[in-house]
């Protein structure tokens, strides 16, 4: 069995690292998932003037300050992408492909995804539309599958699917050299809408359409409702109360993923509130066991 952490933090932007720092101060066994840049939005910011105590700073410089703080507190970012988080009741199972981490509490600090869903995407989810090609590919054995890929990982998934499916289309949403098997047909067109009756069966582009049995949409980050099945979403953001509690016991959220305004200080403050409440949750569980 995997070691169980007290708190798993998903996301290494200001909300996530503030949560990590505060949980660490309270002596909890934590793991934080993210990237070495901490946040791609942060390093792109040319000038920040509303972060208290650090006026007129570039995003890059603020990132370096954050990193120094993490180093000083001996917090390492785990550079892995969480695909799914399952609320098992007493604990959470965090999946990285076939690998699993366990934690008593979870703090979501995933930021916001700017790509809008396709027309029909949400309507047909689970009825021909999916976000994990490798999970559901065997159900499409001998059928036609279209894969809309937002990054290179989509190509690997398409190659795998093409071994099972009768026909595989790949629709790249980025420009690059594609490393695809020869039996995959690449469509360089902009997808507009998924159509169908009770099941999705057609993908409509700007300049045409194809018939298909399944459509997989592979984005950089999965929407929070897909990341944590059962998580309540309101107007595109994770719903929380003022203690940063979500509808799932033991699961907290902070930062841009819970709503506007999208600001560094707000995110850091919410990360702190989430961490302190997660600590209280863990302490109450220990007391009651």
């Amino acid at each position, binding site marked *: 069995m995997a070691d169980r952490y007290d708190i798993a933090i998903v996301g290494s932007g200001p909300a996530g690292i503030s949560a990590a720092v505060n949980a660490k101060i309270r002596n909890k066994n934590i793991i934080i998932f993210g990237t070495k840049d901490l946040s791609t939005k942060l390093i792109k910011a040319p000038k920040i003037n509303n972060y208290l105590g650090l006026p007129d700073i570039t995003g890059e410089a603020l990132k370096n300050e954050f990193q120094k703080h993490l180093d000083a507190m001996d917090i390492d970012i785990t550079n892995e992408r969480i695909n*799914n988080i*399952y*609320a*098992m*009741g007493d604990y959470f*199972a965090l*999946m990285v492909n*076939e690998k699993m981490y366990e934690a008593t509490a979870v703090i979501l600090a995933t930021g916001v995804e700017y790509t809008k869903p396709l027309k029909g995407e949400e309507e047909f*989810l*689970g*009825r*021909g539309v*999916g976000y994990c090609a490798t*999970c*559901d590919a*065997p*159900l499409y054995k001998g059928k036609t599958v279209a894969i809309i890929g937002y990054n290179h990982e989509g190509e690997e998934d398409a190659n795998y699917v093409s071994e099972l499916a009768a026909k595989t289309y790949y629709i790249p949403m980025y420009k690059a050299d594609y490393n695809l098997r020869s039996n995959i047909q690449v469509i360089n067109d902009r997808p507009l809408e998924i159509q169908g009756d*009770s*099941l999705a069966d057609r993908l409509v582009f700007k300049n045409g359409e194809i018939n298909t049995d*399944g459509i997989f949409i592979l984005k950089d980050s999965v929407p929070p409702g897909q990341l944590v*099945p*059962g998580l309540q979403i309101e107007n595109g953001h994770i719903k929380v109360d003022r203690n940063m509690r979500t509808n*799932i*016991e033991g699961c907290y959220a902070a930062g841009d993923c819970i709503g506007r305004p999208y600001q560094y200080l707000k995110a850091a403050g919410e990360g702190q509130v989430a961490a302190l409440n997660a600590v209280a949750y863990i302490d109450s569980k220990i007391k009651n066991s």
Partner: protein
Amino acid sequence: MKEVMDNNFIEEISEGDVPVVVDFWAPWCGPCRMLSPVLDELSAEYEGKVKFIKVNVDNNPVTSQKYRISSIPTVMVFKKGLAVDTMIGFRPKADIKQLLEKHI
């Protein structure tokens, strides 16, 4: 939970007065492996009130096609042989309980 096959599926969902919860799963499906202990717990809690069975979609194509299973796990609820509810993907225990309470 009892494993049910194509040849006895209709019989299993038709007999009795209690709602029948069917877990469509496959061994290669990660979310299915996570959902199955949750359903086991519920099956014990709802003993006598709800019947729980599971169908491996790899070995039972007739049933899977009939109910148009296109993503797994899919959990369906039957009453007297008729489908009354469908839940696609993993869900926390509290959510599934809410779904079951509607049909008891």
